[in-house]
C-alpha cells in the first residue's frame, strides 16, 4: 500500500494503527475471520443446494450428512427438468419477464420524456399522482388489482392466465419512471432544441439523442424490471391458476410436495441459476446502482 492509497481511504481505523506490527496481525486475523464467516453464511448454503441435488436420495437424508457427494450424479437436475416440466415454466418466466421489461422501457421512457421535456398540460398533477403511488405499498393492493385484471373496466375482458396480466401492471412502476424522469431533467433543453432546429421530430429526438445519453439509467431500470418479475411470487400465484402458464417460482411451490427432495433441490438450482448468472455478469453495474441509488435518492 502506498502513501497515497492510505490517504485516499482514511476510515475508522487509522493507517498508522494498521501499519504497526500488532495492527497487521489484528488486521489479518479479522480479515480471515470475515472471509470465512461470509463464505459460511452466504456461499455454503448455495454450495449445499448445488451439491444436494447431486447426491442420491439415501445420501441426502443421511445423518451426519456428507460434505461432498459420494458420487456426483446429475439425475437430480435431469429429473427435475423433465418431471417438473421446467422448460415450459422457464419459458413462461422468460416471456413474462422480457415482455414486462420491454413494455416498461418503451412506455416509461416515453412518459418520462413527455413529463420532463414536452410540458403536457396538467403535467405536475400527473407526476404527483404517479409519485403518490410510491406511498402505496404494492402488496396491499394485490386483491383489488387482481379484481381489475380479472375484469378490465369498460372492456370487460379478463387477463387472467395471460402474460399481459404481468406486462401491463409492470409499467405502473413509479420508481423506474421517476429515475428516468430525473435523468432526463438533467439533459439541457438546448441540446434537444438544437436537434429540433435541425428538423428532428420528438420521437427522433428521444431515440437518437436522449436515449443514447441515458444508457446507464436504462441499464439500471432494465435490471430492476427483469429481476422484479423473475422473483415475484404472490402476483403470478394469483393470476396464473392454469398450471401450464405458471412461471417457475409458482410451479416450484405448487409441485414441491409431489416430487422427491433431490428433484426439488435440482429444480431450485435451475430456477436460481439465471438470476445468479445475470448477477455475476452485471455485478459491477448492479452493485454500483444500489450504492448510487441510495445516496443520490
Amino acid at each position, binding site marked *: 500500500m502506498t502513501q497515497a492509497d492510505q490517504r485516499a*481511504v*482514511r*476510515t*475508522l*481505523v*487509522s493507517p498508522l494503527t494498521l501499519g504497526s506490527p500488532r495492527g497487521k496481525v489484528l488486521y489479518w486475523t*479479522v*480479515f480471515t475471520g*470475515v472471509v470465512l464467516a*461470509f463464505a459460511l453464511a*452466504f456461499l455454503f*448454503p448455495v454450495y449445499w443446494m448445488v451439491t444436494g441435488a447431486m447426491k442420491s436420495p439415501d445420501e441426502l*437424508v443421511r445423518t*451426519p450428512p456428507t460434505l461432498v457427494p459420494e458420487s456426483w450424479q446429475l439425475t437430480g437436475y435431469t429429473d427435475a427438468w423433465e418431471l417438473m416440466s421446467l422448460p415450459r415454466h422457464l419459458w413462461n418466466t422468460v416471456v413474462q419477464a422480457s415482455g414486462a421489461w420491454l413494455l416498461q422501457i*418503451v*412506455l416509461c421512457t*416515453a*412518459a418520462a420524456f*413527455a413529463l420532463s*421535456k*414536452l*410540458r*403536457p*398540460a*396538467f*403535467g405536475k398533477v400527473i407526476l404527483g*399522482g404517479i409519485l403518490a*403511488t410510491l406511498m*402505496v405499498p404494492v*402488496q396491499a*393492493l*394485490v*386483491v383489488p388489482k387482481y*379484481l381489475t*385484471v380479472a375484469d378490465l373496466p369498460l372492456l370487460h375482458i379478463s387477463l387472467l392466465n395471460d402474460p399481459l396480466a404481468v406486462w*401491463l401492471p409492470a*409499467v*405502473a412502476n413509479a420508481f423506474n*419512471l421517476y429515475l428516468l424522469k430525473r435523468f432526463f*431533467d438533467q439533459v439541457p433543453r438546448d441540446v434537444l432544441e438544437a436537434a429540433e432546429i435541425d428538423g428532428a421530430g420528438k420521437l427522433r429526438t428521444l431515440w437518437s439523442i436522449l436515449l443514447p445519453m441515458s444508457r446507464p439509467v436504462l441499464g439500471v431500470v432494465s435490471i430492476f424490471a427483469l429481476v422484479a418479475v*423473475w*422473483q415475484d*411470487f*404472490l402476483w403470478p400465484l*394469483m393470476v396464473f391458476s392454469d398450471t401450464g402458464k405458471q412461471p*417457475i417460482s409458482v410451479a*416450484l*411451490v405448487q409441485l*414441491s410436495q409431489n416430487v422427491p*427432495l433431490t428433484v*426439488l*433441490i435440482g429444480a*431450485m438450482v435451475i*430456477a436460481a441459476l439465471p438470476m445468479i448468472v445475470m*448477477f455475476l455478469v452485471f455485478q459491477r453495474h*448492479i*452493485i454500483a446502482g444500489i*450504492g448510487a441509488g*441510495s*445516496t443520490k435518492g
Partner: protein
Amino acid sequence: METASPHTAPPRPTAPHTTRTAGAPVSLKTPGRSRRPLRRRLADQATAYAFLLGGLLCFALFSWYPALRSMVIAFQKYTPGAAPEWVGTANFTRVFQDPEFGAAWRNTATFTVLALLIGFAVPFVLALVINELRHARAFFRVVVYLPVMIPPVVSSLLWKWFYDPGTGLANEALRLLHLPTSNWSNGADTALVSLVIVATWANLGGTVLIYLAALQNIPGELYEAAELDGASVWQRVRHVTVPQTRFVILMLMLLQIIATMQVFTEPFVITGGGPENSTVTVLYLIYKYAFLYNDFGGACALSVMLLLLLGAFSALYLRLTRTDDR
C-alpha cells in the same frame, strides 16, 4: 434541484378553458409560448399526450383505480360476476371477530420488530467491518449480495429444507456444536424467529451495500480529528460514524418496516401460516380471505387497514427524503 428543473408549472390560467380537444386538455397561458399559434400549441399537447398515454393508462388501471376500488369494495359484499351490495362496515366487523385477525397483526408486528433488531444491527456491523478491510472488497460485495439475487421462493424452499428437524442442516450444525436441537419452523414458538432469519439472510445484502456507500461518504478528516482528540475506536463509531450515517439509517429503517409488514412468501412457502397460526401474517390473511374464503370484501377491508398504516410510513419516508433534497 427544483429550480433547475425545466419542468416548472405553468401559472394557473386565469381565463376559463375555452378549448378542449379530445384527449388533450389544454391550458392556454403557458408563459413564453403565448405567441405561438393555437393550432401549434394543440399539436404540441397532442404529441406530449401521445408519449404519455400508454404509461398513464397503466397507472390509471393498475395503481390509481385499484387503490380507490379497495376502499369501495371494503364496504361491499363482492362476488365476481354478480352485482356488488353495500353492506356498511360489516366486512370490518367480520374481519375483527376473526381470531386469526389478532394473530396476523401480532405476528406481523413481531416479525417487523425482530427483523429490525436482527436485520438492522447485523448489516451495519458487517458494512462497518468490510469498510475497514483493504483486500477482497469486490468479493465481500458480491458474496453478501448473492442471496438477494436468489428468487425468494428458492431461498424459502432452501431454508425449509435446512429447518427439517431430522436431517436439516440447521440441526446438524447444532449437533456439531453439541447444542440442543430445535424445531425451527416446525415449532409454534420458534417458527416466527426462523422466518425472520430467512428474511434477514435473503435481504441484508442490499442494506449492507447501501451502508457501505454511506460510509464511504464520511470525510476521513472527521476520524482524524476525533483520533487527535483521543477518541477510541468505539467512540469514533458512536460520535462520527453513527451521526454521519443517521439519515441513511433512518431511511433504511422505514423502508424495512414497509417491506417486512408485507411479508408473504416466507410464511406461505415455509410454514403455511402454522403451526397454530403462529406465522400467519396480514398479507397472508388477505390472500386467504380472497382465495380460500372467496370473501373479497373482507380481503379489501384488511387491505385498506394495511394501506393506511403503511401509507403513513411511506409518507414519512418521502417527506424525509424530500427535505434532504433541498
